[in-house]
């Protein structure tokens, strides 16, 4: 190797070392990539993207199919934790329902002028179609008696039927034995709400509702039905249900189906009104004549 060639070689080496030194100084002072840097990155990016795609694909396969050693035990632990949390959530939901029921009871007690007694629903026998047929409450013969009204925050529920020991059964307003004197709130027309006792719904029928001459005074779907307080065990003005279906008329009375407002399937607590309905008139069927106004009087 000649001296000249060696000299050229080392000069080239010097230049090759000097160039990156200058590039480094320039890039440090500039702080952002130069146009040349960006162009090189643009050219090499597809290769990097391709390699990354392959490597990440292989890595992903490894993570998904091979590195699953601890997944089974972790899965088991998570399932157990999930079961525990579900139980806790169920308990909390139950507690929240209790609180809501107690709040409802408090509201009912506040707006009811008569004496009331709170009761917890402890039983609800179901029909084959999963509808509540009657309720059992935790108040017995020392506290309640037959025919006392039972209401909830959303409306009347029924009346006490049988009392035994520390418990009492409630006949629902949807039961065929239930009859409640009611008023169509919008028009003031009166009728009698009678339970249909259907195994698949809580529907009642409104009987003896006079067919009004003017169509606007007739009942319509969605009209509210309230208790009249007349001849009834319930105080007046309680919303008992809404008209759910019009079944035509027989020329004199409208036939309606009513859906009660109280959802008995969700009731957890009720209020018992401690006021009995008025007793039947003992002289109702005996003939009584008024004394004559101008009768002869002994002088």
């Amino acid at each position: 190797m000649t001296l000249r060639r060696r000299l050229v070689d080392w000069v080239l080496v010097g230049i090759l070392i000097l160039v990156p030194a200058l590039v480094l100084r320039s890039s440090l002072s500039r702080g952002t990539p130069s146009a040349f840097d960006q162009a090189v990155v643009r050219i090499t990016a597809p290769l990097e993207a391709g390699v990354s795609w392959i490597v990440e694909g292989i890595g992903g396969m490894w993570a998904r199919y091979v590195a699953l050693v601890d997944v089974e035990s972790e899965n088991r632990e998570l399932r157990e934790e999930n079961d525990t949390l579900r139980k806790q959530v169920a308990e909390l939901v139950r507690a929240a329902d209790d609180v809501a029921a107690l709040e409802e009871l408090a509201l009912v007690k506040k707006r009811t002028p008569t004496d009331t007694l709170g009761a917890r629903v402890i039983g609800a026998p179901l029909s084959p179609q999963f509808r509540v047929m009657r309720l059992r409450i935790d108040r017995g013969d020392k506290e309640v008696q037959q025919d006392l009204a039972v209401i909830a925050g959303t409306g009347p529920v029924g009346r006490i039927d049988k009392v035994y020991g520390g418990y009492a059964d409630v006949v629902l307003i949807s039961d065929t034995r239930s009859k409640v004197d009611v008023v169509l709130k919008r028009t003031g027309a009166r009728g009698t709400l009678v339970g249909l006792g259907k195994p698949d719904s809580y529907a009642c029928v409104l009987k003896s509702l006079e067919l009004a001459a003017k169509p606007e005074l007739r009942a319509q779907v969605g009209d509210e039905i309230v208790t009249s307080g007349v001849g009834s065990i319930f105080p007046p003005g309680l919303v008992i249900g809404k008209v759910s279906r019009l079944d035509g008329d027989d020329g004199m009375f409208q036939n309606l189906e009513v859906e009660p407002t109280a959802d008995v399937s969700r009731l957890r607590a009720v209020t018992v009104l401690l006021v009995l309905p008025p007793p039947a008139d003992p002289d109702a069927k005996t003939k009584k004549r008024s004394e004559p106004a101008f009768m002869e009087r002994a002088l």
Partner: protein
Amino acid sequence: MRTASIVLAAYVLCVIVAAIWRLVPTSLLRDAVPDLGALTAAYLGLTARRDVAPAVGGSVVLGYLVDLISGTPPGLGALVLGATSLVARTVQQRILVRGTTVTMAFSAFVAIAAGIVSLIVRGLYGVPTSTIGVELQHIALVTIATAIIGPLVWRVFRRIDAMFARTQRERDAALEGLAP
């Protein structure tokens, strides 16, 4: 052409390593990235025939490309690899890198040298550095990783060298790791 092929192969390897090391779960292992740039620069310097400039040029180009991949300031890696190539060229006449153990030891030496050169260059140019403890730990991890992967990478380079051999003797010498 030979130098360009080695630089290209080294660049592809660097991209692969960068993609793989990103997926490594342990942070300690993630820091132990093998310094393929330094290995390549050392190989080019060590196997430079008559002229040094092609080896230094190839190292500088590779260093620049590695800078663009790794996000270091452009020119830093190029300068470090150029210097590493010169260091390898200096020891060319004194050692013979053959066999796995020597190759691993030389790879470790190269990684340490490149780490120190990098520290010096960064100090000279005012590039921010970590504490000396962290830097030394990083150099140690990189050295171990480079030593482990060194023989494999050099085998690839020797294969490439053998492809450019003009005679059977040169080919055998390249595969054996004998200096040209």
